[in-house]
């Protein structure tokens, strides 16, 4: 075996299509996800959730259940170990719904009240169903509405309010005004793989085999909660069946750790699909009021975006929908505000493009209404309102190639031939229309560490605590490492999803691949310096470590975002209210694209989320019980194959000058603006504005018979 570096440099892996390195395992069923790793003496836990929306647990009748076949234990607030939830973790304080079995209060329907552990999953399920819990029920309030008296402003991850100029004066002076309310419903991530964790103690260390978006993050949360030395907790998560923001610390991991600790054997807890609706987080419904005031030529004098979302009574989370215009559009008077109301419901969380997804629906639909009023093409309206610097921050953009996206998209979509008048095109029973919308999403990086080893056999091993939740991160990092080392990708092995690999950013905020690639690039640079000394490679290899904390901290303050232009063509049957998307095109300026094959899939996937958001997704809360109606995949529709036409995504050249690889991040921007483009196309097809998602057949029919915009 050679122990020297290769003679000829190989680069160009980044930017070239590469099938997934774990692809064979995924198509043969060999890839094992969290609930699929076998353990000797494995016991099965089944969670019991509250059947009231507010109140107090009076008693948990465990004795009958403990006599049932195979039952090992029943954990509840009366016997569970105490945990600490009074800490600030990597992304804030924990959601108390995850700190299970600590008190008798029930703050929402589906609150975890017990864990039944048994020898088999069938026994655990039956016993969990048989467990009788008595409650003292209290009146609840789960009704979300724009006029809720208890709404308040709160900062969350960005300031609640930004204000510039005299809004009312500018509105009064505007030639044209749009003033409309838009709503989006409660939406759920519903990754295909339900949340699953197996906990066990092994040689004095707690090990959790889990499905999450960041093992170091989850490990540190568990260490905090159980007051353990962080080094004594190991979390692994090799393959993750989707996350979309929902896979952080949740009730199932905490319950599994409690049970494994008490029983001294491995315990697996898997959420059922129905339980996920209460325990996995979700996107808050929003009601958003937009007021736009414009000169006759479409340039904005006034922009007001006020958004209300909800949170639980036990934890604060803001869906920051009003943040969109802080990046996208300027006006002489520019006001944005995010408010929340606390209700007796579970806590919402990040869901693909938090803030931007619902916020862009409202802003981009309102702009389409303004374009109609001004008699200006919707793309031209955006051209006329393109800001020079951040509308609120005043900071320069690192790069802003929005107009390039619109130009390329308009060319490929055939926008120039569009007749702007609504309700004119027909294909049999279908009315046809087209629509467009802009997209943006923040481009950031988080501190990460990586280890890279030059092996004695001439290959390289990268260890980084990345998570591949379907993003293709494992493959992307292989390509990044190969180019940085100037070797062929097949000489690089990337290992991920193990908290023992050290701290790293999570698969979230569209920041994963960029953050990890930065650390990998830094490690490769140092390793090449070491190898250049030509001292030979010992049998254990040469390992270097990188840490990007300082480099990322040194980044200049700029407006850093990806941008995009969305185009959709829809068909609407006015007799039945059915809406079908016929084609979609998204053109993005989203930094350097590492792997065109997987990147295209991820962008298209985001756009399909937009179809799903526009037409299908909606969790319905039953006012009387305070719980969901139809909390399953038959009741909560996500787009199926037949809903999805040929959806195309492509990009313009847009490398980030401040990133070592030029990456910006592509995980979320695909959904941004997509629902607005579809809603705008529905207006173009029918002449009716739909301001409430999803655009269901009954809403289309009711709007038709009302003869105007939908109520």
């Amino acid at each position, binding site marked *: 075996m050679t122990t020297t570096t290769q003679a000829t440099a190989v680069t160009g892996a980044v930017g070239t299509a590469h099938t997934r390195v774990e692809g064979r395992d995924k198509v043969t069923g*060999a890839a094992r996800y969290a609930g699929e790793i076998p353990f000797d003496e494995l016991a099965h836990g089944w969670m019991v959730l509250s059947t009231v929306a507010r109140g107090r647990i009076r008693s948990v009748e465990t004795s009958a259940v403990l006599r049932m076949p195979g039952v090992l234990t029943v954990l509840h607030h009366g016997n569970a170990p105490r945990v600490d939830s009074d800490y600030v973790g990597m992304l804030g304080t924990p959601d108390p719904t995850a700190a299970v079995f600590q008190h008798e209060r029930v703050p929402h329907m589906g609150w975890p009240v017990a864990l039944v552990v048994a020898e088999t999953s069938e026994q655990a399920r039956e016993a969990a169903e048989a467990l009788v819990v008595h409650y003292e029920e209290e009146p609840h309030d789960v009704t979300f509405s724009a006029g809720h008296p208890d709404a308040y402003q709160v900062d969350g991850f960005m300031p609640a309010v930004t204000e510039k100029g005299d809004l009312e004066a500018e509105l009064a002076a505007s030639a044209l005004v749009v003033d409309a309310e838009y709503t989006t419903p409660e939406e759920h991530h519903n990754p295909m793989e339900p949340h699953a964790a197996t906990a066990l103690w092994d040689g004095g260390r707690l090990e959790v085999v889990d499905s999450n978006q960041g093992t170091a993050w989850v490990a540190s949360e568990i260490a905090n909660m159980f007051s353990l030395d962080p080094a004594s907790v190991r979390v692994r998560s090799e393959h993750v069946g989707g996350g979309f923001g929902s896979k952080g610390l949740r009730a199932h991991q905490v319950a599994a750790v409690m049970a494994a600790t008490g029983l001294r054997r491995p315990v697996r807890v*898997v959420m059922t699909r129905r339980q996920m609706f209460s325990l996995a987080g979700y996107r808050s419904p929003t009601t958003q009021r937009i007021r736009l005031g414009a000169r006759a030529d479409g340039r904005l004098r006034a922009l007001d975006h006020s958004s209300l979302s909800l949170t639980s009574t036990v934890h604060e989370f803001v869906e920051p929908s009003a943040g969109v215009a802080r990046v996208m559009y300027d006006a002489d008077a520019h006001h944005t505000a995010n408010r929340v109301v606390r209700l007796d419901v579970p806590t919402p969380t990040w869901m693909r493009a938090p803030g931007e997804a619902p916020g862009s629906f409202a802003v981009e639909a309102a702009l389409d209404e303004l374009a109609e009023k001004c008699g200006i093409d919707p793309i031209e309206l955006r051209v006329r309102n393109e800001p020079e610097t951040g509308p609120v921050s005043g900071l320069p953009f690192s790069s802003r190639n929005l107009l390039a996206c619109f130009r390329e998209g308009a060319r490929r979509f055939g926008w120039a031939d569009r007749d702007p008048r609504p309700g004119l095109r027909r294909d049999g029973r279908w009315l046809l229309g087209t629509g467009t919308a802009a997209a943006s999403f923040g481009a950031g990086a988080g501190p990460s560490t990586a280890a890279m080893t030059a092996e004695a056999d001439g290959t390289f091993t990268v260890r980084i605590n990345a998570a591949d939740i379907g993003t293709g991160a494992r493959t992307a990092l292989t390509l990044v490492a190969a180019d940085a080392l100037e070797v062929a990708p097949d000489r690089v092995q990337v290992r991920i999803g193990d908290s023992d690999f050290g701290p790293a950013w999570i698969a979230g905020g569209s920041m994963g691949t960029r953050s990890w690639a930065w650390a990998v690039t830094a490690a490769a640079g140092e390793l090449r310096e070491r190898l250049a000394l030509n001292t030979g490679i010992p049998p254990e290899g040469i390992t270097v470590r990188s840490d990007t904390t300082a480099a990322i901290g040194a980044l200049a303050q700029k407006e850093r975002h990806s941008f995009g232009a969305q185009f959709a063509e829809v068909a609407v049957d006015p007799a039945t209210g059915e809406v079908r998307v016929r084609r979609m095109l998204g053109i993005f300026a989203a930094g350097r694209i590492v792997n065109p094959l997987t990147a295209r899939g991820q962008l298209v996937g985001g756009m399909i989320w937009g179809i799903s958001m526009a037409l299908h997704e909606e969790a319905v809360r039953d006012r009387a019980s305070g719980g969901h109606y139809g909390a399953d995949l038959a009741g909560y529709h996500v787009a199926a194959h037949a809903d999805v036409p040929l959806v195309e995504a492509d990009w313009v050249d847009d490398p980030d000058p401040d990133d070592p690889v030029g990456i910006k991040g592509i995980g979320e921007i695909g959904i941004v603006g997509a629902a607005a483009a579809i809603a705008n196309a529905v207006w173009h097809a029918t002449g009716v504005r739909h301001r409430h998602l999803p655009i269901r057949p009954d809403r289309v029919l009711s709007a038709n018979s009302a003869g105007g915009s939908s109520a």
Partner: protein
Amino acid sequence: MAPAPSTYSVITLNINGEKYSLPVDHRTTLLDALREHLDLTGTKKGCDQGQCGACTLLIDGRRAVSCLQLAVAAEGREITTIEGVAEGEQLHPVQQAFLDLDGYQCGYCTPGQICSALGVIEEHAAGWPSAVTDDVRPEAGPPPLSADEIRERMSGNLCRCGAYVSIVQAVAQAAEAQTTEAEAEEAAA
């Protein structure tokens, strides 16, 4: 009153050409028997209610959801899971097409999509119409396996990552290859 019946049985399942004997609780679904008792975890549990298709496999050559199939009721039937689709190291053309065209992202719905695609190709070859077939009368002949036909026939397999576009392309490519191969064999014979 009838005497209380036994609630478990020792059964033999025929999976991927191998026989597996095991005691099962009658409540155990085929899906759980595979995943929790036989360490065949390629078949995925997405909803456990027949609402997502992740657990799709083939029973007597036809696609079925294993979450609603009791294991005890599957005795005596030929079961093919994702682990039995490739011929040794040689991937099935459907698997290869999913890999080449990136017909997945997280991979969790993938075994179900692939098994479903195997069924779709067979069902179409047998001349079965679908809900988007214009004319279902036998005189109209079998519909071409267009993208719309594939989309309708694959709709029982949800993919939350939204890999539908490349999945449809992969199924079309594999079906085309299979048709070409069958025609070549026919021509040779």
